[in-house]
Every structure is written in C-alpha cells, then in structure tokens.
C-alpha cells in the first residue's frame, strides 16, 4: 500500500517525513489532522491509532510508526547513503543526531508553537535551550567544513540532516534569529538545493535555483 501519513501542515515533525519521502521519491498518502484549532490528535479516534496523541503517524501497511525519526529510517531503507556509508561510526553519528533532533523539537520547536499557536511554554527557557542547540550545530558544522564535509555526518546528506533541518530552519518562527550562524546558513542552503526538496510555510522556495524569466515572456 501507499504509506499513509497522518499529517499537519505546520508541524515540523510531519514536514521531516514529507521532506524525506520527497527526497527519496516515495509517494505518501496524506491524511490531514485538525491539530489546530480542533485538537483532533487528542481525540479518541486518533488515540486509537496513536495512544500518545502526537503527530505524525505513519501507517506503512505493516507498522504504525509514531516517532518521526523512525519514519525517516523506514523511508530511507533501500536508498543507500541516506543512513550513512555503512560504517559503524557513521551509523552511530546518525543516531546521535536523530536523538539531538528531539532537543531541537523541545526547545526551538516548542518556542515556535508558543509564538505561533499560543502553546503554553517557558518561552525564555525554550529559546535559551534552542540557542545552545544552534551553537552546537554551528560548531560541529565548522569542524565538518574544515574536513571538507558539508553535512552533519559526511559529504552527503543523511536522515540526520533531515531530522535536524526543520526545527533549525524554522527557529525564527519562535523568535530565535539565525543571523549569527554562517555555517548553519550554508548547510541549510545545501539541503534546500537538493533535488526533490519541498518547502513548508516558513521555509520559502529558493527562487535562485531557477533563472529569471525573460522580460515580456509572461
């Protein structure tokens, strides 16, 4: 069956999964969930699918997955490179960043939900924790670049990059500016330039990838 994603268009975690699917060319059957304002994900019908009442949920036909990082692993299967180069160290590093992406969601992601959709949160604490995360990513990308690597775990993107990209790129939605991070900017640009990349609200199209239309062509 076509894998079915229970989806909310403004969710950074749902976007991870849509983005990964687009990059590896997997078609998803999207089911819109009224996360806001309806809080459908907290209702009994949705909880029957995912007792945690969280989004996204991916039904693969054989599995019901409720963690976005697990969905990335599932989607990347059969697409060599996206889970690392097969080495022990790459596999471990990918796991490291998948776990790190949970910190991004709890800090920058929560700040965003607070600023945008009125979620209750310790907003100063979320932003400070988010800045700590961004500094770690920036420092890591600096060292990676010295070694000639553009992405988090190597010279090509993996699910680690896709897991971390959304909440980093959407940090300004939660009042955390990305101005001070030149390394993160170049990394985001590399991800946004990947063939098959799709955007979400808050991350606009890289219009520069297409030439300007000829004047009068319209």
């Amino acid at each position, binding site marked *: 069956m076509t894998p079915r994603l229970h989806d909310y268009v403004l969710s950074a975690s749902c976007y991870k999964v849509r983005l990964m699917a687009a990059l590896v060319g997997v078609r998803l059957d999207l089911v819109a969930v009224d996360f806001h304002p309806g809080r459908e994900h907290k209702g009994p019908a949705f909880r029957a699918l995912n007792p945690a009442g969280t989004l996204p949920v991916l039904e693969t036909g054989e599995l019901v997955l409720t963690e976005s990082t697990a969905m990335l692993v599932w989607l990347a299967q059969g697409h060599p490179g996206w889970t690392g180069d097969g080495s022990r160290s790459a596999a471990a590093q990918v796991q490291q960043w998948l776990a790190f992406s949970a910190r991004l969601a709890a800090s920058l992601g929560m700040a965003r939900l607070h600023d945008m959709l009125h979620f209750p949160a310790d907003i100063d604490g979320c932003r400070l924790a988010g800045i700590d995360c961004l*500094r770690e990513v920036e420092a890591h990308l600096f060292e990676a670049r010295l070694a000639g690597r553009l992405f988090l775990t190597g010279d090509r993107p993996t699910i680690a990059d896709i897991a971390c990209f959304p909440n980093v790129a959407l940090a300004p939605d939660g009042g955390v500016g990305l101005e001070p991070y030149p390394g993160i900017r170049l990394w985001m*640009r590399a991800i946004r330039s990947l063939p098959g990349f799709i955007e979400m609200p808050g991350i606009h199209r890289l*219009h520069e990838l297409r030439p300007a239309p000829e004047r009068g062509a319209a």
Partner: protein
Amino acid sequence: MKTGGRVTNWVANGLSRDVVAGVVVPGRWQGVDLAIWRSATGVLRAWKDRCPHRGMRLSHGFVRGEGLSCIYHGWTYGTDGRCRSIPAHPDLVPPAAIRAEALDCAEADGVIWVAGAGEAGPLPAVTGLVPLRSLALHALPGQIAAALPGLRLFPGGLRGVVVLGGIQTSLCLLLQELARGQTMIHALCGPQDDPVAVSRGLEDLRRSIEQGVAA
C-alpha cells in the same frame, strides 16, 4: 567603533568564505540592519535591509546572476542599486529613483568590511592572519574587551597573543555589535594555529564571558 583614539567607520560583517557567490546574508552596521550579497560573478554589496517597495528585509531575498530580488514581490535590484525589474509590471522600466540604499563595503584578508557611504577611512589591517569563524556572544564589545586584558584594541577589534585551550595562539577578534546586546566575533588566528583547537577555545571563551556578564 572608537578604538585607541582613532575613528574608523569600518565594521567587520563576516568572513568572505561564508558569503559565497549567489547568496544574501544579514549584516549590521552601527545599529542599521543590512543585506550583504554577492552576485554570481562575485561582486559584493552591502545595502540597508529594507526594500523600497514595502519595507521587506532584502536579506530574505534571492540572488539571480547580477541582481538581488526581494522575496515579497520580486523587485530586482542591480549591483548599482537601481531597481531593474518589477514583476507585477513586466513591461515597465522602473524609474531611476527607485533604488536600494547602499553602504560602502570592501574585502581584505578574507574579511568583509562595511562602512557608511563615502565616509570610510583606511581599512583596518589584519594581514598575516587567517580567517577562522564567526560566532555571536550575549555580551557587549566593551565587556568582551574587559574580559580579555591580554588583547589590545585596534581599529576593528582586539588582537594579540593569548593562551586558548592550553595553546598559545595569535588571535584577532573583529567585533560587530548586533541587536539585543549581542556581539558577533569574527575570529582570525595565526596560519600555524590548529583551527579546531582555536574554535573550541573560542567556545570556552564565550561560555566564560557570558557567565561573567550574567553574574
């Protein structure tokens, strides 16, 4: 920045290698937000971060060839600052009066410098060092200088030889004041220094300066 009795308008706004051809990035000079961009052929420009049409930040825009376009309605400005196309009116030649507001910018030794239009003095010299990385601190330039008595002030920032992470390093910190009490440090180090060690040393330095500021 006033340093050692001499006045220079030049403020470091980043390292050349972080602003590759075809990108636009945010900058800041004396409280003014900037859009700094490099054309496809490498021409570097620093403009006020405000599209004359409806005030959108140009640093959110996109570079195509030799022009910077605004993300809101796609108005495109050439390297001379003049608006050269308005997509809503494809056949219109935009009036010459529509232009982005430019500041002076220059590059030397791998550093991007910005100054008020037409009022810049000579560029601060940082020859003999190599660009390392830029990082922001929640501290003001004066607090950073006070925390580093081993470095001396020069036009553009601080420099000298310090022990960083247990290693003796020739360090130059170009200081750029950002909004909300933050300062960007554009760091350069000696060509023989280990960049990873210096970078990690700078992270330590940031932690201790920020703790000092918070205390």
